[in-house]
């Protein structure tokens, strides 16, 4: 989905790095091969990125400048409108913003604006990630029943963390697009929580 943007802008000192939070490289392979990216396209079975950047759902995007500083914190954006009927997000808003940033036509956020929009991990988030880490290791050892306990516990500790609640479904033999996911998403919406939480300007509310 991001290959076209990368091809368009790569000569302007820009790179896309995609990271798949999947249980195995083989789960991510068909998606990556279909996109045939020429930018780094990485596999993250242990959710290293989620731990470091407090990622709680996919897709999550961040902008990082030439000095290695975060200039747009965790945001939700798609590279195309394939899932717009489900997400209600117009991908062109973020694509235009990112192009303007790369060209230097528009500055990214100032540090105080970044801080105001950052979501920092809570103690419960980090406990949930420890449960995920233990569960993922047990699962990779073939100890699937034990892993299940920790994935469930992680989801209870951080119910907004869909990298745990939905992301572990494939390890637990649950269809992540199936009825259990739909029920989870409906229950979440009924409790008044959005499933995707884009920053205001990306959502077209700036």
């Amino acid at each position, binding site marked *: 989905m991001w290959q076209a943007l990368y091809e368009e802008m790569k000569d302007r000192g*820009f790179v896309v790095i995609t990271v798949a939070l999947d249980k195995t490289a083989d789960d991510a392979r068909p998606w990556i091969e279909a996109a045939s990216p020429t930018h780094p396209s990485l596999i993250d079975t242990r959710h290293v990125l989620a731990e470091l950047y407090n990622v709680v759902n996919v897709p999550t995007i961040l902008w990082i400048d030439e000095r290695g500083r975060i200039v747009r914190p965790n945001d939700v954006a798609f590279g195309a409108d394939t899932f717009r009927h489900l997400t209600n997000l117009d991908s062109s808003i973020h694509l235009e913003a990112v192009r303007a940033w790369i060209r230097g036509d528009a500055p990214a956020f100032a540090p105080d604006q970044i801080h105001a929009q950052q979501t920092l991990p809570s103690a419960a988030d980090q406990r949930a990630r420890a449960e995920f880490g233990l569960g993922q290791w047990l699962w990779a050892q073939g100890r699937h029943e034990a892993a299940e306990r920790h994935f469930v516990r992680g989801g209870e500790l951080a119910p907004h963390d869909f990298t745990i609640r939905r992301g572990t479904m494939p390890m637990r033999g649950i269809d992540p697009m199936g009825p259990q996911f739909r029920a989870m998403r409906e229950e979440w919406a009924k409790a008044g929580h959005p499933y995707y939480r884009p920053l205001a300007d990306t959502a077209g509310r700036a």
Partner: protein
Amino acid sequence: MFTLIEDGTIHDVDATVTNGRVCLSHQALATLGWELHPEGLCREGLCIPVPAGLALETDAGVDLEALAKALDRPVAIDVDEHAAYLGVSAGERARALKSLVAPDFALPDLSGRVHRLSEHRGKKVLLVAHASW
């Protein structure tokens, strides 16, 4: 033997499980880089006082749950599987993110080649987390 995973690094350590509690040997504690002294938990000459009333030291060794509490770090324990995961505190992660320095990482691509974020210093990076689910 007990498997203790510390933020992704796997240690096989000497620990005992009694009555649902995991107690680490002092050697296991040293594997994590800590020593227990009268001043508290010490690492590289710096000591963290042990909160009063926290039963860190037991006859069987250092209580893992109490250790995590003393270090303000999250822990997940599976006594049946003889395994635990000691994570990173919310405070440490929050401080790192608030600094706005993008945390570096090393992850493989489909061919197994490892890439680091820091290799791309000097470029603007769009970092995208996605998944098949």
